[in-house]
C-alpha cells in the first residue's frame, strides 16, 4: 500500500472547549482528497464532534489529550478517535428513544453514539480500562455501502 493509496494524518489535541470544532477543520481540509458531497463532509464533522465530546466528557484521561487518526483512501475516510481514559462497555449503553425521554423525569442526554452510528457508514468501538478507540468510516457516495443512515 503506497502513500498515494492511503494517506494517514494524525492529530493530537488537548481536551479544551471548542477544540472539537477546531478538529472539524481538519476534516474539511482532508475532504479535498475524497469525492465527498458537502453533506457527507458535514455528517463526518458532526460524528467527529460527538466522538470528541465523549472523550472530553467521559474518558477522565489523565493526559487530557485525544488522538485523531485520519486515513484517507481514494473512496473512503476512516477516522479513529483515541483517548487514554477509563473506557466503557458500549454494549451497556441503552439505545435512546425520544418517547422514553420526553415528559419523563429523566436525563435527556445519551444521543452521541446513536448519532455517530447513523451519520457514518461504519462505527466500531474498542474500549477497555486503558482507553477507548472509536473507529468510524465514511464512504464517498459513488462507493457508498448499504448505509445505516439510509434506513432512518
Amino acid at each position, binding site marked *: 500500500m503506497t502513500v498515494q493509496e492511503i494517506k494517514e494524518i494524525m492529530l493530537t489535541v488537548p481536551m479544551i*472547549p*471548542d477544540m*472539537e*470544532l477546531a478538529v*472539524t477543520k481538519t476534516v474539511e481540509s482532508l475532504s479535498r482528497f475524497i469525492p465527498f458531497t458537502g*453533506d457527507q463532509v*458535514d*455528517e463526518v*464533522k*458532526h460524528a467527529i*464532534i*460527538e466522538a470528541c*465530546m465523549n472523550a472530553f466528557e467521559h474518558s477522565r484521561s489523565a493526559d487530557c489529550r485525544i488522538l485523531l487518526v485520519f486515513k484517507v483512501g481514494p473512496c473512503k475516510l476512516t477516522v479513529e478517535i483515541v483517548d487514554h481514559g477509563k473506557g466503557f462497555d458500549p454494549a451497556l449503553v441503552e439505545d*435512546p*428513544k*425520544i*418517547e422514553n*425521554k*420526553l*415528559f419523563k423525569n429523566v436525563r*435527556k*442526554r*445519551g*444521543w*452521541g453514539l*446513536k*448519532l455517530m452510528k*447513523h*451519520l457514518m457508514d461504519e462505527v466500531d468501538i474498542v474500549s477497555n480500562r486503558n482507553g477507548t478507540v472509536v473507529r468510524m468510516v465514511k464512504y464517498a457516495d459513488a462507493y457508498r455501502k448499504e448505509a445505516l*443512515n439510509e434506513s*432512518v
Partner: protein
Amino acid sequence: MNQFNIDIEHTGDYAVIRSDGYINNLGGEKISEECCRLLESGCRNFILNLEKSPIVNSIGVSILIELIERVLESDGKLVFTNLTSTIAKTFRIMGLLQYAGAFPDELTALDEIKKM
C-alpha cells in the same frame, strides 16, 4: 473563542429566535433561557431559525429537547426552520421532528403554526 448570538423577534403569541453560532451546551442554554423567559411572559409559539447555526452537538440538542418539553407542556409549539440537511437528519434520527416540526423558512413556519 466561539461566538454565539441570538436575535429575537417577538410579536404577541409568536417569537422568532434566530441563533448564530455553534449550538453546544452554552448555545443550547442561551436559546433555552430566552425561550423560557418568553414562555413566562405568555408567549406560546416559537420559531427557531437555525440558518446561521450549521453545527450542533447532541448536548446542545438535549437542552433543546428539555425546552420542547416545556413548550409542549405549556400547550405551545416549537418549530425549526432553515435546517441544513445534516441537522435535519440528526433531528430525524433522534425522533425530534415528531414533536417539533421543521419548515424551510420562517414564513412557511408561521403559516403552518397558525393552521395547527
